[in-house]
C-alpha cells in the first residue's frame, strides 16, 4: 500500500516505525531536520513542503497514495491537508489527527470530509480509563467492541500464589482468559502448560473484561476497583480524561495551577470538583485529603512536573499513579521513578492511526513493549488453510490466538475448538511475524 504521511514529528515517526517494512511511505514535512532524522532511520521517501499547500502535496505525489495520514501537531494543518488530499485522490482513505475533541464530534456528525479523525486527547483518555478499570495492568487494549481485553501485567511481590510459581496447567487461571506471553528480562515465552509465572515477570493476558479485572486483583490483591481519582492538570488532556472517567461514574477531582484553565475546566465539567492549586502545595494536599484518592493521574504539560507531582502524591499516600509522558524518553524515566503506568499520547495516537494501514480485514491493532509485539484483530478468509483446524494442531510461530469473535460474541478457545471462516481472531504476535500471520489467516 502507498501511504502518504504529512508530519514527521513524534506521531509521524512512530507511524513510520510501525509501517515502513510492509508499506511504501512518503513523508512530507516543512522541516528538513525532521525529514533527515526519519530518512536516516527508515527507508522512506521524504519531501520538504507545506502540508497546507496543494501544490506541494501534488508535487510530493499525494495523488497516487492509498492512505493519507495528516498527523502534524497543528489541527488546522491537518484539516486543510486532509481536505486537499481528499480532492486530489479519489479512492484514498484519509486519516487526520486532532487535539480538539470538537473536531471528533464534527466528524462523527458527518460534517468533516475525511474518513477518520483521531484525537490524541480522547485516545489518551480511553487508554487511561482502560488502565483504571484494570489497575494492575501496565497497559491494556480492548478489541471487538470491548468484548476482549488485552492486558500487560507485572508479577510483583504480593501477587496471589494461585497463579505465581505454579505450572500454568495447575494454576487457577481466571475463566475466559489466556496467558499469551511471559516476558522475562529480554526473553519472551509463548507459554505452554509447563511454564511458570515468577515474581518479576511481565505477562500478557488476553481475556474477557471480567477476566482482566480478576487478573488485576490476583496480581495486585489490594488494588480494588477505582471509584475516586484525582487528576493533576486540567488542560485538554486532563479534561478529556476527566470527561471519560466521569461518564463511567468515577468521582473526579482536578488540580490545576492556572486560574483561567481551572475556571474553564470547572465550567465545562460540572460533575468534577476543580481546585485552583498546584500539586506541590503540601498544605493543600493535606487539607483536601488528596492522598485519600485511589488513583492519581498526572496530565500536566511538563513531564518533569508530572514526575515530581506523582512522587509527592505517592508520599501523600496515593497508591496508584498514572502519568502522561509527552516525551518518549519519559516513559522509562517515569518507570524508574516508581510511577505505576505511563501513557504517551503520541504513541497512543500513532497506534490508533496505524490500524488504518493494515489489511482491510484487520480491525484493530495494539502495540506492546515498545512495538516488539502486536495484538491483531483479523477476520479469517474462507481460503485460509487453518479453517476447520483445531487450535491444538496449529503451529506456534511466535504467535498465539487469544480469542475469537463469532457472531458478535467473544470466545476464548480451548484446544478442541475449531476455527471457522469469518471468525475474527484476536492474536498476539511478535511484530516481525505480523505480516505472515495476517497472510496465513
Amino acid at each position: 500500500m502507498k501511504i502518504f504521511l504529512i508530519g514527521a514529528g513524534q506521531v509521524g515517526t512512530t507511524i513510520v516505525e510501525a509501517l515502513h517494512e510492509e508499506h511504501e511511505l512518503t513523508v512530507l514535512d516543512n522541516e528538513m531536520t525532521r525529514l533527515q532524522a526519519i530518512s536516516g532511520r527508515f527507508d522512506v521517501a521524504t519531501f520538504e513542503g507545506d502540508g497546507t499547500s496543494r501544490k506541494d502535496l501534488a508535487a510530493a505525489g499525494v495523488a497516487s497514495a492509498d492512505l493519507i495520514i495528516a498527523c502534524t501537531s497543528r489541527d488546522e494543518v491537518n484539516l486543510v491537508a486532509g481536505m486537499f488530499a481528499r480532492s486530489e485522490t479519489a479512492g484514498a482513505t484519509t486519516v487526520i489527527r486532532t487535539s480538539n475533541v470538537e473536531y471528533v464530534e464534527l466528524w462523527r456528525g458527518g460534517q468533516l470530509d475525511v474518513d477518520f479523525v483521531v484525537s490524541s486527547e480522547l485516545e489518551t483518555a480511553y487508554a487511561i480509563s482502560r488502565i483504571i478499570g484494570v489497575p494492575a495492568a501496565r497497559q491494556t487494549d480492548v478489541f471487538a467492541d470491548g468484548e476482549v481485553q488485552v492486558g500487560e501485567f507485572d508479577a510483583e511481590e504480593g501477587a496471589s500464589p494461585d497463579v505465581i510459581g505454579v505450572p500454568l496447567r495447575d494454576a487457577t487461571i481466571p475463566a475466559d482468559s489466556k496467558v499469551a506471553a511471559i516476558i522475562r528480562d529480554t526473553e519472551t515465552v509463548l507459554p505452554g502448560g509447563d511454564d511458570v509465572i515468577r515474581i518479576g515477570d511481565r505477562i500478557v493476558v488476553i481475556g474477557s473484561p471480567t477476566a482482566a479485572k480478576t487478573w488485576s486483583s490476583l496480581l495486585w490483591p489490594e488494588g480494588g476497583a477505582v471509584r475516586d481519582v484525582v487528576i493533576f492538570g486540567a488542560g485538554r488532556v486532563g479534561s478529556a480524561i476527566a470527561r471519560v472517567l466521569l461518564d463511567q461514574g468515577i468521582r473526579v477531582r482536578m488540580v490545576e495551577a492556572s486560574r483561567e484553565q481551572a475556571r474553564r475546566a470547572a465550567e465545562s465539567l460540572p460533575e468534577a470538583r476543580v481546585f485552583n492549586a498546584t500539586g506541590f502545595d503540601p498544605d493543600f494536599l493535606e487539607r483536601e485529603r488528596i492522598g485519600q484518592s485511589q488513583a492519581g493521574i498526572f496530565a500536566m504539560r511538563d513531564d518533569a512536573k508530572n514526575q515530581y507531582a506523582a512522587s509527592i502524591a505517592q508520599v501523600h499516600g496515593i497508591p496508584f499513579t498514572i502519568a502522561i509522558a509527552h516525551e518518549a524518553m519519559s516513559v522509562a524515566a517515569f518507570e524508574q521513578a516508581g510511577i505505576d503506568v505511563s501513557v504517551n499520547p503520541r504513541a497512543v495516537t500513532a497506534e490508533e492511526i496505524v490500524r488504518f494501514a493494515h489489511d482491510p480485514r484487520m480491525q484493530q491493532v495494539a502495540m506492546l513493549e515498545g512495538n516488539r509485539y502486536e495484538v491483531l484483530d483479523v477476520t479469517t478468509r474462507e481460503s485460509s488453510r487453518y479453517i476447520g483446524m483445531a487450535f491444538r494442531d496449529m503451529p506456534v510461530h511466535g504467535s498465539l490466538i487469544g480469542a475469537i469473535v463469532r457472531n458478535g460474541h467473544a470466545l476464548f478457545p480451548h484446544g478442541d475448538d475449531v476455527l471457522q471462516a469469518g471468525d475474527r481472531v484476536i492474536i498476539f504476535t511478535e511484530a516481525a511475524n505480523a505480516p505472515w500471520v495476517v497472510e496465513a489467516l
Partner: protein
Amino acid sequence: MSQSVARIGPPRRLAIDVPAAVNLIGTLGKFLGIAALFPVPFALWYGEPVWAFLAAGAITSGFGLLLERLTASSRGGVGLREGFLVVALTWLLAAGFAALPYVLSQNPQLGSPIDAYFEGMSGFTTTGASVASNLTDINRSLGIWRQFTQWLGGMGIIVLAIAVLPRLRVGGRQLMESELPGPEISQLSERIRSTARKLWFLYVGLTALQVLLLASVGWAGLDDEMTPYQALANSFSTMPTGGFSTLPRSAEGFSPISQWILALFMAIAGANFALMYLGIVRRRPRALMRDEEFRLYVALVLVASAALTAMLWGHGIAEGEEAVRAAVFQTVSIMTTTGLASADFALWPTVLLLALFALMFVGGSAGSTGGSIKVVRHLLLGKTLRREIDQTLSPEVVLPIRLNGAPVDERTVRAISAFVLLYVGAWVVGASIIAVDSAITGSGLGTLDALATSATALGNIGPAFGPAGPMGSFAGLGDVSKLTMIGLMWVGRLEIVPVIVLVTRHYWRL
C-alpha cells in the same frame, strides 16, 4: 501653537451628553402624551369631562416637543451612560404625566399635587398603592386612566417606545435592560427592537385573553360584579402586576371563579415573558419547564399557598375551597407584587402577616412585569452563599455559579449580591423615614406597618398592613412619607442601580 490650543478647546467638564439624553426624553414625552387619548372614548361614552385628558396629553407632548427642540442641535447618541439618565428622568416625567388628569380634573381625593404624583408614580411603576380612600368618588374615565397607567408601565415605557416608534436614537441593549425587570433577558437574543415587539405582543395578547375570560364570566351570569368595564380595569391591573382596583374592596366582591382567573393571570404576569414567548408562541414549552427560575417560582407559589392555607384554616379564618382560594390569591398577589386582595389581610393574625411580609421580598421572575428582588436573584444568591460556605472549607475549589447548566458570569453574580444589599438598604432607610414621620404626624402606622409600607413601595406591590392595608389607603400618611414612598417606587421599579449611578461623582464628571 495657538492653532493647536484652539483645536483642543476649553476643558470639558461633563462625562455625559446631557443634550442628547434630554433630546431622547423629549421624544419619549412627545409620544407618551398620546396615551392620554385612551380614556377619552370612555369619558365620552359615560358622559364625563374630557378636557382634563386632552390637556394632560397636550401638556406632555408639548413639553416633550419643547425639550426636543431645545436640544435639536445635539449630535451625540445615547450610550450606556446617557441611558441611565434617560430611564430615570423618563419615569419621573411619566409619573407627572399620569398625575396631570387627577390635578386638572380637581379630583377631591387625588387633586393635590403630592397625592396626584403619588398616584401617578404608583400607577406607572405598577405598585398599586393608592392615596384614594373612597374609590367611588373617582369617575369611570379617570378610573380607567388610573388602571391604564399601570398597564403602560408594566412592560416598560421605553420598551414600548423601542417596539413601536420609528428609529429611536437608542444605541444598545442597555437602555432597555435598565428598564426591564430582572438581571438579564438573554432568552430572546435578537435585535432589541424585535425583542421589544415580541414582549409587547405577548403582553397585549395575554391582556386581551384575560379581558375576554373575565368578561365571559360576567356575560355567563357567574359574576354580577364583573362588567366589561371591570374586566378591562382588572386586566389592566393584573398583567402589569399593578394592583389598583376600581372597587373599594379590591377583588373581594368578585365571585370565586373570577378570583381564580385573576390569580392565574397574576401568576402568569409574574413569569418570564421571554420564556413564555418561547413556550407559547414558538411552542417550545420545554424552554419554560426546564428553566430553573420558573421551577423555583412555581415551587414557591405552591409551598407558600399551602402554608397560608394551613394557617388560615388553622386560625379558623376560612376553610375548604375558600381557605385555599384566599391563600393562593394573596400569595400570588403579594409574591408577584401585584397587590390585589380577595380578603382584608390587614385583619389577619400577625403570623400570617409575617408570611405575607416575607413574600413581599420574593418578587416575580426576571423578565416579568413583577417587581421586588425577583426569584432568579434569590436563586443565584442562594447558590453564591452555598459556594461561599464550600469555599470556606476548601479555599482552592473552583465553583462556577450555574443557571440552567450554563455558567453565570462572575460580574453578574457580584451585581446580584450588590443589588440585594442595595435593596435591603433602600428598604431600611425608607422604613426609618416613614416610621419617624408617622410618629411625628401620628398617622397610626405601627412598626410592622412602616416596615411593610417601605417594602410595598420599593417592591412595587401596593398594599401594606394596618390602615394602609388592602382595603385601606395611604391617604393618612404625612407628605414626607408619601414623598419617600414616591422615591421608593421609582427606585424600586428601575431596580435601584440606574438611579444610584446618577448620584455618583464619576457619572457626571470626567
